[in-house]
Structure formats: structure tokens, C-alpha cells
């Protein structure tokens, strides 16, 4: 059983596929390479954590595409969700 999945190699977040505990080291595979990441938060199944340092204002990338913008600096292993991610506008065309 994996800990988390990175869908696209451009992604800066991984999604947990089981409940993961704070302060544990989890393994994440990105195009054949295994990253070891120490979790700074409790990450529930389906929730995301940062696998790269994301600075305030930068995009959160999942599926290789922007899904939101960092409201503050986010460290590797931190929970990425509505508390630190701002929404992107929908087109009004």
C-alpha cells in the first residue's frame, strides 16, 4: 500500500491514500524516484501535503495544473487545504 500519490511530475503536492500521522516519514514516488517526506501535520485520506516548498502567491500544482494559490509560505510536509490556499477565479467569458 502506498502512502500518497503524485499524479503529475510538475505537481508540488501529493495526495494521501490512507490516513497519515504527523511527524512520520512517508514515501512518495515521483516518476520512478522515491522522496522521503516528514509530515508536519496529520494528513487524512484524500488530503494533500506539500512535496516542495511553496512560497506565498505561488500556484498549488496538482494534475500538472494550478488548482489554487498559496496564501502564505507552505513548507514541505505541511497540510495543503482551504486554510492556506486561495481560490482561482472562474472565467467570465
Amino acid at each position: 500500500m502506498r502512502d500518497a500519490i503524485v499524479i503529475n511530475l510538475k505537481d508540488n503536492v501529493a495526495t494521501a491514500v490512507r490516513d497519515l500521522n504527523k511527524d512520520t516519514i512517508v514515501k512518495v514516488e515521483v516518476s520512478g524516484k522515491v522522496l522521503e517526506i516528514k509530515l508536519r501535520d496529520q494528513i487524512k485520506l484524500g488530503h494533500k501535503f506539500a512535496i516542495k516548498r511553496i512560497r506565498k502567491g505561488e500556484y498549488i500544482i496538482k494534475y500538472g495544473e494550478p488548482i489554487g494559490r498559496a496564501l502564505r509560505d507552505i513548507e514541505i510536509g505541511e497540510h495543503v487545504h482551504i486554510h492556506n490556499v486561495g481560490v482561482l477565479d472562474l472565467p467570465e467569458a
Partner: protein
Amino acid sequence: MSDGSFLGYVREDGSVGTRNYVLVIPSVGCSSEVAARIASNVNGAVSLYFNSLYSCIEAPKGNVERAKTVLSGLAQNPNVASVLVVGLGCEGLPADELADDIAKSGKHVEAVVIQKEGGTINTIRRGTAIVSRMVEDASKLKRESVGVENLSVAVECGGSDTTSGLAANPATGVAVDKIINAGGTVIFSEVTELVGAEKLLAKRAVNSEVSDKIIRVIKATREVTKKMGKETMAKGNVEGGLTTVQEKALGFIYKTGSAPIQDVLDYGEKPKKKGLFLMNTPGQDIESITGMVAGGRSQVVLFTTGRGNAIGFPIAPVIKICGNPRTVELMKDNIDVNVATIIEGKETIKEAGERLFNYILEVASGKFVSAERFGFREIAITNVYQYV
């Protein structure tokens, strides 16, 4: 069959069926039961059953036109060898008119009308004789090896959960890319699920006209659902870990792979070329599949699910693809392709997608999926006007 070929029924017009049904179509909901009785009398025949097919003489023109487009499209599907239309006699879509429209495609079609035959017993007797002869002819046809460019596939998802966007949809995207690269056609739909993916889908359009259409059609759906008080992001989505509507939509559209989008089709509209198309349908699975199979002349349906689903379709195999290990175990009867291997760490997305592609070719060549083994054949047409 990893060379990208399958064994199909080559029709006179060059199209290729993955199945070889004689189809019995009611031209109005009122003849559904008689159509079903006729089909059940003959092995190899299948009927469409509608309680809601409102092509009555009193129905709005838009609904009657929609019924004609969809029923004619289903009749022209390469999975269908020949057709019997069963009318009541007073409907707004007369059996002969529908049969004439089907005949234009070159498909062999006949019609019986309950009010003219003199009741249901006579209609069933005459219809059974016609369908029996049709099956005799159809059964002579043998499967031949053909290329994937002959395949049109409809892609749907239902009963989604967290695993859908992580396993089943990405794996399906790999298989979809392989079908498109081989020269085939793929239709996706459910515009309600695309809110948030407007820009990304628009970028994948073949030209600016299609790009504008994509944005327009998603915005129109967004406004309608907003009026209905339906939230695009439900509370449960956020609790489950989805942060934004973009993330939700991307998980959904990952099953469409990465090919350019050729055009936006109306419900039941036939694409004018090959490649990837978006069809404007509601999110309701059965209605959405009906529109895609009718317009896309699709011979196979791919259905991704997280929580599991059992539905089939009368004239096309519906392949259930599931990435949730628990559902795969719990609903063994209904899941055809297990891609929970991605989450379990046994396969990559690409490996699972390639395995799925090979499975699609096996099904196209005649292997029965779960919904076919059980004889499940759900169908429904989205009315243009809902309240009449």
C-alpha cells in the same frame, strides 16, 4: 491484442460493431412494453425501454426532435445489425418517419404499429416474425480483425470518490490517449462536472471557435445549476480533501487524456470527424451515456467509479473501472477492471492504463462485461423541456 486491433463486425457502410444486435425501438413510451415482448421472444434481439419517452403528439416539438435524433442515432450504431421500430400510432414521432430516417443510413429497418396491426397480440406476433428473420441474417456475419481507428468510445464517471481522481480517471486517460493516437474517437460529457476546468479545456481546443464554445457551454451550465441552488463544491468534497473547484474538475477531466478537443457536440449530435469531443449533457449517468452512444455511435462505454456502480446500456458494453481497493473487493460482481493497484503500489498509472487499453480491445472483440452478463440495459433521454 496489444497491437491495437480488435475483432469486430464490419457493416456495409464500413463502420465496425463490437456487438451484433437486432434492435427493437419504441417510437414512443407507450409502445415500450410491446417492443420488449418482441425482443424477449428472439435470442439476439434487444429492445430499448422508456417510461419517459415523451414523443407524444402533444409533446413539445423540441422533445420530439430530440427523441428522433437519439433513437435514429442508436439505430445507426455499428453494434446494431438491423432495426424494428414499434409505434403506437398516434405519436408525434410516427414509426414510419423514424424508420425512414434510419433507412437513409442504409441500415435495414422495418416498422409495426400497434393501432394498425390491431392490438398487442397481433403486433407482437408480426414483430417477432420480422425480428426472427433479422437475427437469422445477422447471425451469418463473422468477426474480422480491424484497427482501433474504427473504435468510438464514450467516457463516463459515476459514484466518484477520492480514488476516482487518483486512480480510475488517470488510468482511463492513458487508455483514451492510446485510442486517440490510434485514430479512434472518444466522447466525454457531464458539463456540470467541468466547472473549474474551463481554461484548461479551452486551451486544448483545436481552434479559438471551439475554445469559445467550451467556455460558453460550461458557463451556461454553471448559471443554471446556480439558479437551482446546487453547489459545485459540496461540504463533503472539502472534508474529503478537495480544496478548490479546479482540483475537483481536474480529477474529473484527467480521464479525457491529453488530446486536443475537436468540437463541442449537442446532446445526441454526431461528430463530423474523428478524435476527442465534448458533448453537452447533464451529469446524470444514464442520460449522459445515452446521448454519447447515440451521437458518437460509440461501440464501447468506459465508466470510472469509486463507490461502485452496476448500470449497463442496451447496445454497448459498459466497462466499470474502479480504483478503490475496498469497492473492488466489495463489488467484485460489478467491477470489470481493477485499478486499485495504483493506490496499492503494485502498478503505475501508465501500467494500469495500458492494461485497461488491452481490456477494451478484448471487450470490443466480444468478451462480455459484468453489466452484459447480467443483461443490464438502462437508458434515458434528456428532454429538452422538462415540464410539459
